[in-house]
């Protein structure tokens, strides 16, 4: 049971070492670095080869010698704070005790980690560390997985000589909504404070006081409100920091665990799911090099609370005679659903069946539903995206870059996408590290300031709908009024001969996909351009790869290209491309949809035009919703089928890079809830067809067989790859988006509607730890516009679009471009999404002072 990556790695190393004989060390060295002899170091009498610049503590660990430590963390800069890693080192001037976490290896270095002096140092340091430690292990959550406890047992003195009164503090104090701090237990290792300042950039906790009165604390009344605060709990080497959702929930030795991938967003952070008594009680970040480095965001980390919610659906629901949703048997519910589907299909109106959603699903669920919808029902009106992504065909043809390639030291990145801290939090941590530590040059094209703006070497503000003009200027060097000529010159100098990594996604919900695609297409002619598309929904990339998108088939292929791959496994494929979510909802609102299936989608609050979504759900003859909760959309359905959630089902998921990794089941789904693919298979049987899918592994293997991008990604292969496996990449030219001028109503202002991490979505509101953090929205104006309208921060403004007026409080921020007004999507209070005109490339609004908020 380990607390963090450092210790996990150690265990692995120790296991490897056990498997080998002692004298193997020398040969092993030669094997590891055949080209570069490296730095020769003697550790405990054995010659080993270290990498130049490597820290002694790492070199020793890589060769099977674990040096105890508290403050050192492989993903943070060393500080030599705890002195636990003191070992005897001779660099030609005789043996002396030195902290191995602060000491880079040098040629000829002789190290003794187990000499009497080293052992005495470790023993002494532990005795000092324990002087003020309360030793309240029996009531401490960390007990059983505590580095201080473990290392005291392994390296420390058997008893204490300290008889004086220990230091006392109030136990524990909340330092944020989710994190508690027990200062008595703290050993002042500087891990949490370094994480906050150096990794997350939220230096909201800091050492205070001096000497034996030093403590970690926040500024009075400034809570540790970081999106990443949970990481400090995971890396705390004692029980000083604990997280509310896990406090007193379980004992480490009672936990069962399995590795999986977080599906809170599409970054794909590797996690350990830990459960006790068939309930998920904690996620811990797992350090994988290509993605999350052990970090998680709090929304992901504490997202498991939603799984345990009392509001989870446990029974299938259908309407009774009064029109109320009541629990029925699965047989009844599936019978009703199948009957509606059969009627629609048999009357020759398969295209009147539509499927929306699927980005919450595993790849296997998504494949099963594609096969059912496109191969058995025969409809291509299938869309996993809710109008807030990018065109699937366009995405399929983009040359791809991985997160590591985007973060490559010294590289150049153009960011044309959402604020990563709000939508893809751990990608923000990677970008921050890339810029701050690895000197990546970041050029941001953004319609409003983001968390990246202070990191960017250049930030180009544009008005929604005008991204393509800015992109064009960067490519051609002709400013053409879209961008300041001096800024343009410096951006073009930064780009030079490339290569350029371009991160592309939807910066805000009121700017159309086409506008962003046109900009991305223009940028694709920059030297060495490759793309990291950042669609935000959990497994939207996998769902699109599986063909849950109009005109697409598994393996990122078009209908024509994909047909041949499926000949032997599918009974049919659609003839012509179908409709996307917006058109489906329009059809449904006009009563032209017989059956609308929602795969974990909640368009009533998650689609840009909520009123259209509600009309559509009312207008469709039969609505079948597969969901974990009775969401606003599911509550309008005729048949509601409860489905298994994360950690309740196995399968694979695909992240923004196209990295496929294994999800593992840890607990049982509540009530009668079952996996989405089983529902598809069952409905197919009831329609007299057979999907031919009997287990998740078999589906994974079928995908590997029929989807060209997934060749070789079999169940066996993906389960044994902790880092996941990258899917194949596209070939052929990039599909050019329509080159029209941006469209939208005339209006004084253009509105931005951005996503925030803690919105009013079902998942957040079902997590007790996260729900209180949900944002309350406001409008944000530039100082110039504020002055012109005669409003200051805190005043009320009324914003009117073609969709109607919305009044709310206003803030003034000098980062806002004059002529734009910023608002937030799906938040309590002022929800800017009510103003979005999904027809145009941007939404024009008028703003006036006053109104009833």
């Amino acid at each position, binding site marked *: 049971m380990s607390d963090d990556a450092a210790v996990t790695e150690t265990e692995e190393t120790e296991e490897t070492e056990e498997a080998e004989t002692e004298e193997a060390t020398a040969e092993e060295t030669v094997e590891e670095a055949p080209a570069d002899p490296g730095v020769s170091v003697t550790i405990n009498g054995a010659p080993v080869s270290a990498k130049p610049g490597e820290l002694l503590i790492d070199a020793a660990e890589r060769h099977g010698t674990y040096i105890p430590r508290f403050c050192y963390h492989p993903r943070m800069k060393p500080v030599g704070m705890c002195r636990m890693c003191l070992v005897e080192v001779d660099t030609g001037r005789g043996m002396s005790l030195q902290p191995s976490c602060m000491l880079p290896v040098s040629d000829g270095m002789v190290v003794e980690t187990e000499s009497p002096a080293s052992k005495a140092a470790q023993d002494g340091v532990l005795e000092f560390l324990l002087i003020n430690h309360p030793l309240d292990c029996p009531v401490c959550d960390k007990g059983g997985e505590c580095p201080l406890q473990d290392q005291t047992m392994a390296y420390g003195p058997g008893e204490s000589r300290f008889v004086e009164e220990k230091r006392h503090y109030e136990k524990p104090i909340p330092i944020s909504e989710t994190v508690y701090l027990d200062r008595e237990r703290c050993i002042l290792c500087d891990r949490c404070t370094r994480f906050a300042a150096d990794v997350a950039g939220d230096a909201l906790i*800091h050492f205070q006081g001096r000497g034996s009165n030093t403590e970690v604390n926040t*500024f*009075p009344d400034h809570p540790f409100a970081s999106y990443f605060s949970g990481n400090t709990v995971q890396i705390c080497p004692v029980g000083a920091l604990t997280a509310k959702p896990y406090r007193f929930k379980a004992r480490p030795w009672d936990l069962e665990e399995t590795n999986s991938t977080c599906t809170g967003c599409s970054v794909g952070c590797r996690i350990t799911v830990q459960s006790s008594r068939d309930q998920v009680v904690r996620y811990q970040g797992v350090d994988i090099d290509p993605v999350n480095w052990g970090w998680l965001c709090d929304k992901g980390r504490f997202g498991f609370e939603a799984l345990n919610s009392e509001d989870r659906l446990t029974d299938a629901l259908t309407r009774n005679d009064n029109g109320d949703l009541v629990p029925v048997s699965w047989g009844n519910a599936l019978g009703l659903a199948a009957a509606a589907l059969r009627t629609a299909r048999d009357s020759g109106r398969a295209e009147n069946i539509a499927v929306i959603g699927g980005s919450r699903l595993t790849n296997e669920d998504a494949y099963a539903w594609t096969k059912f919808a496109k191969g058995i029902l025969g409809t291509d009106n299938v869309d996993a995206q809710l109008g807030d992504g990018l065109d699937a065909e366009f995405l399929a043809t983009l040359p791809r870059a991985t997160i590591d390639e985007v973060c490559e030291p010294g590289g150049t990145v153009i960011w044309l996408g959402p604020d990563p801290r709000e939508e893809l939090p751990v990608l923000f941590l990677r970008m921050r590290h890339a810029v701050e530590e690895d000197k990546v040059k970041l050029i941001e094209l953004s319609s409003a300031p983001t968390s990246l703006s202070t990191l960017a070497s250049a930030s180009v503000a544009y008005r929604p709908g005008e991204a393509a003009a800015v992109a064009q200027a960067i490519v051609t060097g002709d400013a053409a009024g879209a961008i300041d000529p001096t800024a343009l010159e410096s951006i073009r100098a930064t780009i030079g001969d490339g290569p350029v990594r371009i991160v592309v996604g939807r910066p805000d919900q009121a700017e159309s996909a086409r506008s962003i695609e046109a900009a991305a297409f223009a940028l694709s002619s920059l030297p060495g351009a490759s793309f990291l598309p950042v669609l935000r929904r959990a497994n939207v990339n996998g769902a699109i790869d599986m063909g849950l998108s109009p005109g697409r088939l598994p393996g990122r292929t078009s209908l024509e290209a994909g047909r041949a791959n499926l000949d032997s496994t599918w009974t049919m494929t659609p003839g012509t491309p179908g409709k996307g979510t917006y058109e489906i909802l329009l059809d449904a609102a006009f009563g032209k949809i017989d059956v609308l299936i929602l795969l974990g989608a909640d368009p009533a609050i998650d689609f840009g035009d909520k009123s259209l979504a509600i009309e559509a759900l009312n207008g469709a003859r039969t609505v079948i919703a597969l969901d974990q909760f009775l969401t606003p959309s599911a509550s309008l359905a005729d048949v509601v089928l409860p489905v298994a959630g994360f950690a309740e089902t196995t399968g694979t998921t695909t992240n923004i890079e196209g990295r496929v990794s294994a999800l593992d089941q840890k607990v049982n789904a509540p009530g009668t809830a079952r996996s989405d693919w089983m529902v598809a298979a069952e409905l197919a049987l009831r329609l007299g067809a057979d999907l031919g899918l009997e287990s998740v592994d078999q589906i994974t293997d079928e995908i590997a067989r029929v989807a060209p991008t997934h060749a070789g990604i079999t169940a066996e292969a993906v389960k044994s790859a902790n880092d996941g496996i990258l899917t194949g990449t596209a070939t052929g030219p990039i599909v050019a988006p329509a080159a029209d001028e941006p469209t939208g109503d005339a209006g004084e202002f253009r509105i931005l509607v951005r996503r925030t991490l803690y919105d009013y979505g079902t998942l957040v509101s079902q997590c007790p730890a996260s729900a209180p953090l949900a944002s309350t929205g406001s409008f944000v104006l530039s100082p110039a516009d504020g002055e012109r309208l005669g409003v200051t921060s805190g005043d009320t403004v009324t914003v009117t679009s073609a969709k109607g007026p919305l009044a709310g409080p206003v803030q003034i921020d000098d980062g806002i471009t004059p002529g734009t007004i910023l608002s937030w999507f799906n938040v309590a209070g002022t929800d800017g999404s009510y103003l979005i005109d999904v027809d145009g490339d941007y939404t024009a609004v008028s703003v006036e002072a006053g109104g009833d908020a």
Partner: protein
Amino acid sequence: MARLSEENVARAHEMIARYPVPKSALIPLLHVAQEQDGYVANDAMEHIAELVGVTAAEVVGTCTFYEMFKRHPVGTYVLNICTNIACQLLGGEELLAHAEERLGIRAGATTDDKMFTIEDVECIAACTEAPCLQVNYRYYGRIDPDRLDQMIEELRAGTGIAAEIPVHGTLAQTLQHLPEGQGDDIIHPDLITEAPVWFRSDEPEEATTGGAA
């Protein structure tokens, strides 16, 4: 109590401009805050955080490291009475007890009239003058209880030594006025490429090799 006054903000900007990294001005700015309010107020620390572009937690981290930054109001005169070994042997503890008795407060507290704060301090490096004390960081040596009583009387009455001791919080004022032109040639540390002047050159120096082994 309060954020920095307009006048102090102007001084703050001038001080920040003296450093290549704004954060370096933290300590001088904390002195300004202490001078303004007699102690470092939370509002002032938040204001300083905004001025130098760090978080308030970082400011309070720096502030609390130094004993001489007070986070709560103190008296007009802070009496630091040394009870470390040299002073202790010559009656430092008795002196402290006398001061506590005389002013009716314990060490660490402030009199009701906000005139005096007593602090029990460690060695203040004036052992030759033991027992010694400081009033607002001005040294007074070889103090006996009678002399202490007299000093307290003078400070209360505004006579005698009161003339030579400025009120608490003005200690750093003199350090904050730089001659014209000083500091004009400062360079941002990231822009310095050559080795610092105190680095030993690589040429062999016979004299220094002896001690290394």
